[in-house]
């Protein structure tokens, strides 16, 4: 009598092992694309930080290292519960598996709640560009008191015959006035803050997707979907969760810890 095909085996795979390997490779490949996605943001951040170190440091000083630190602990703990969930799946401990998946989702949600509180505090403190930004809090100092001239020529430097005037001995500085220096410094602080909100915001979007994934896995686990012979969705979900965690590990120092004085 021919063996009944495993209900977990998709029709286009030869065996569960192949299916497991395909799913795992698929997730690793997907995480590579996510790395490139965040990589564009990290690249932009790096370039602007190298150009405007003082403004970035001043802005970073206004972020709360305490909140960032607590969030980091929360997320790292969620990675622990995720790893424990994978172990529980491997050993067939169903109740532990469901508990760990729910704990992971819960800790992720706690991270989001703390982040939402942090965004609220940022708004109250006037750290949100366009919506509520207190430019007067940020005064340039040191090397950025005289900001770099803007790329290209100011219109005044073109002569009537259309030729370009030779630049003066020192490059003409469009922001020579103290108030203009402060204005451009404030704009650079806003630039940092934009990167802060976009990077943590996109990270949060990925976290929300991860939490949804955990809840779905927990629901299926509760119904006995997974067993030591078939648990790779947990493993694959774990890979995604750990990646979201690792992204935060890079975000924390770059956004919170560059000020040097808190």
């Amino acid at each position, binding site marked *: 009598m021919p063996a009944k095909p495993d209900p977990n085996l998709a*029709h*286009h*795979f*030869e065996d569960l092992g*192949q299916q497991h*390997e*395909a799913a795992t*490779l*698929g997730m690793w*490949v*997907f995480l*590579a*694309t*996510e790395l*490139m*996605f*965040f*990589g*564009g*943001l990290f*690249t*932009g951040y790096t*370039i*602007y930080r190298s*150009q*405007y170190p003082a403004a970035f440091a001043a802005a970073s000083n206004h972020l709360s290292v305490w909140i960032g630190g607590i969030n980091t602990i929360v997320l790292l703990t969620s990675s622990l519960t995720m790893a424990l969930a994978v172990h529980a799946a491997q050993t067939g401990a169903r109740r532990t598996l469901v508990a760990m998946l729910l704990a992971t989702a819960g800790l992720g949600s706690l991270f989001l709640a703390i982040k939402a509180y942090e965004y609220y505090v940022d708004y109250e403190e006037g750290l949100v*560009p*366009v919506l509520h930004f207190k430019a007067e809090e940020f005064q340039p100092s040191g090397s950025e008191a005289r900001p770099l001239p*803007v*790329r*290209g020529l100011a219109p005044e430097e073109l002569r009537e015959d259309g030729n370009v005037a030779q630049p003066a001995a020192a490059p003409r500085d469009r922001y020579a006035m103290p108030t203009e220096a402060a204005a*451009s410094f404030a*704009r*650079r602080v*806003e*630039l940092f803050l*934009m990167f802060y909100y*976009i990077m943590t915001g996109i990270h949060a979007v990925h976290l929300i997707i991860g939490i949804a994934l955990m809840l779905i896995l927990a629901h299926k686990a509760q119904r006995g979907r997974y067993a030591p012979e078939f648990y790779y969705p947990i493993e694959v979900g774990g890979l995604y969760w750990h990646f979201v965690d690792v992204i935060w590990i890079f975000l924390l120092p770059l956004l919170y810890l560059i000020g040097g004085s808190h």
Partner: protein
Amino acid sequence: MTPPSLQGEPAPVNYLNVAFGVRSWLLTLDHKRIGILYLVSITLMFILGGIFATIIRLELLTPGPDLVDRDTYNKLFTMHGIIMVFFFLIPAIPATMGNFVLPMMLGAKDLAFPRLNLLSWYIYMIGALFTLWAMVAGGVDTGWTFYTPYSVKSQTFVLPAALGVFITGFSSILTGLNFIVTTHRMRAPGLTWFRLPLFIWSSYATSIIILLGTPVIAITILLVGIERVVGVGIFDPDLGGDPVLFQHLFWFYSHPAVYIMVLPAMGVVSELVSVFSRKNVFGYHFVAFASLAIAVLGFLVWGHHMFVSSQSVFAGMIFSALSFLVAIPSAVKVFNWTATLWRGSISYDTPMWFALGFIGLFTMGGLTGLFLAALGTDLHVTDTYFIVAHFHFIMVGGTVMAYMGGLHYWWPKMTGRMYPEVWARPAAFLIFFGFILTFLPQFVVGYLGMPRRYHQYVPEYQVLNVMSTAGASILAVGYVIPLVYFFWSLYYGRPAGPNPWRSYGLEWQTPSPPPPDNFPVTPVVTRAPYHYGEEVAVAGQA
């Protein structure tokens, strides 16, 4: 669409007649049906992009702005570029022929993730809808390159168009992901890496580029959108941003993107050249590794689009040297195809004409790329029609030719019908000569100084522009004819049988159209591909 049944036998079950109705198509998980869905969508987008090109060429018949005004003209070339690049060229060969043929070439029943495959088509359609919305609402005038700060400030509908491109990028990523995993994990027994057909090697290299490059343009476009909505300067110099940073991020994807467009085309040409000269591809390993080399080197040359952007001359020199380097693997392929043709038993069926057209036109386009890689020359011809001619030689003379060749080659496999060769060959010649008349004058007029993206020009350029438009009209006829006869062949085409080309490819060792699971029994592969001319293959073995 199935071959007429013989001697009263019921028609065999194939992927087309296994189920009927709109739901069976829109909810299909069969890679072959998804390939057909993409074929229809991509053809519609190609027609749309072609309509924009037609209006552009009509406007350029005369030096003055008489057909459309300057703002409309800007919108026309922008939409032509966006649609042709993102909605035609990038997905064309991978999503249609790749989806259809790749699992079969691997001896697999489907791609690794059939549901992601279907999702990728829906994502493509949603992205297309956003872009069409932008078009209908009034268009975009930034150029397909979305350069900042204008793309941040333009009062046209940049946001929906950018969203459309952002969304469609994920369609591309899912396709690439599927191809990589399928190639790694679902090869038939005995199908080692160096027994893979070269179309697989090309698709694999293409997928690597898709996966590593597309996310970067996704985030870049997202940042432009955020800047438009929020009004804070990420790329706007008035607000402290750097517009050249946008160019770096944009071209970091968009240069590899051109290799996404050309590598699958090269893969198709490798297949066609071997079948239609009944010969093993000369230097198989060189061609396979050249595909990978193009993928890797292609990521290192983006700055050659930015020689005049105020990037340093030192950076320009490095990008220039690397751009010369990236031409080498392409040249290796051209030499190997030529050596394959040498002393082959060549049959001049339509797919072969398209392959030969590719080799000639791609070589010409590629050589002009070397002129552009040289800093001194590029400085003079950048933003002129020389550039326009260069990339159209590769994308139209190259990729679209190979696309047509592949479509003709695999049409009998996909539909079970032959297209009418008596119409196809003249159409191929119309396309070839129409193409040359359209774009060769553009090299000249660009070298003489005619700028690109201008709706008017000095009268000295008119003769060459008239030649170009005349060529475009011939080219258009050349494209319409296959549209008609392919459709005709679905009902009246000669039944093709499993292997009308007597190819040794694995996809041909199964009926046409293929059964839903591709192979009744998973094939076992014992030989290298393209073993033409060796001892006759025993029926049933690859």
